[in-house]
């Protein structure tokens, strides 16, 4: 009789423990990305001088799209890593900065101070950020030469991860 009770308790508690274990295994603040493997959304953006441009204009080589902002502290740490990588990859990859929830003037001042080696684009009304499912900054998207999102990185990216992500999108045999 007692064993039967134990069995009943086990039948009801084990699934609960399993569900809780699944829940605790995830970061509740992590926003899952559904974009990798899909065609990258083509946002209509403007450069810091107000000239319209779009992401599709850069198709044909690996593109790194970095969402950042001047008020974001981790973005500052990442800035140097991105600038260095953009210089190292040169013509083999295209780096793009998309200014998130910020003003063009703030971005211009910031970039004048910190330096910039690749195009920086303004995203009015966060339309591009919403299209990419951005949930905070910094976030980086890696778009392959065919325009497919290969990967996404949340938070400041390190030089090794950045190089690995870009290299994985380069055609084989590229030095």
């Amino acid at each position, binding site marked *: 009789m007692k064993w039967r009770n134990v069995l*009943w308790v086990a039948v*009801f508690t084990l699934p609960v423990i399993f569900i809780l274990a699944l829940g605790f295994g995830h970061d509740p*603040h992590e*926003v*899952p*990305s*559904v*974009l990798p493997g899909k065609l990258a*959304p083509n946002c209509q953006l403007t450069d810091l001088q107000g000239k319209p441009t779009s992401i599709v204009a850069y198709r044909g080589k690996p593109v790194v799209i970095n969402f950042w902002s001047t008020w974001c502290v981790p973005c500052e740490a990442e800035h140097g890593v991105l600038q260095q990588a953009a210089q190292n990859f040169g013509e083999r990859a295209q780096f793009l900065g998309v200014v998130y*929830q910020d003003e063009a003037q703030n971005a211009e001042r910031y970039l004048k101070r910190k330096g910039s080696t690749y195009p920086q684009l303004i995203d009015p*009304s*966060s*339309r591009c*950020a*919403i*299209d*990419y*499912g*951005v*949930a*905070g900054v910094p976030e980086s998207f890696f778009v392959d030469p065919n325009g497919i999102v290969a990967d996404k990185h949340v938070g400041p990216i390190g030089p090794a991860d950045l190089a690995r992500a870009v290299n994985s999108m380069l055609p084989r045999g590229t030095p």
Partner: protein
Amino acid sequence: MMSPTALLLAVLLQVGAPTPPEAQAQEAFTIGKMLRCPVCQGMPIAESPSPMAQDMMARVRSMLAEGQSREAILGYFVERYGEWVLLEPTAKGINWGLWILPGVALVVGLGFVARTFKRQKPIESAAAPTAANASDTLKAIRDEVEL
């Protein structure tokens, strides 16, 4: 009294008429209550003061103004943020478990409680002292003390 032709015309005009702004605002709010703010903690975009949530609400309003349906708008956000963006998960696939399990747990729980009560009642009634039993016991104690 309206003639049938006039009535038909009025109905047709009503069908083609744009949604009134109040109804559209209400619909935007309803949709906004279904969507999770990505930069907040479990808060719908309709109630969040964050600029990102407000931009998402603006997107909802502009899509409604374009004549898009609620399903299309929710689908647009799910395509970008996944099912995570829905505060109420859709009843499909593994999500069915979330809808069914609480009901199953409630039924099983109630069944368990009912079964336990059913078992305990006869024991309690057998063990409960009746007036006759109590007086017999008292009489036995008195007899023993007096002896």
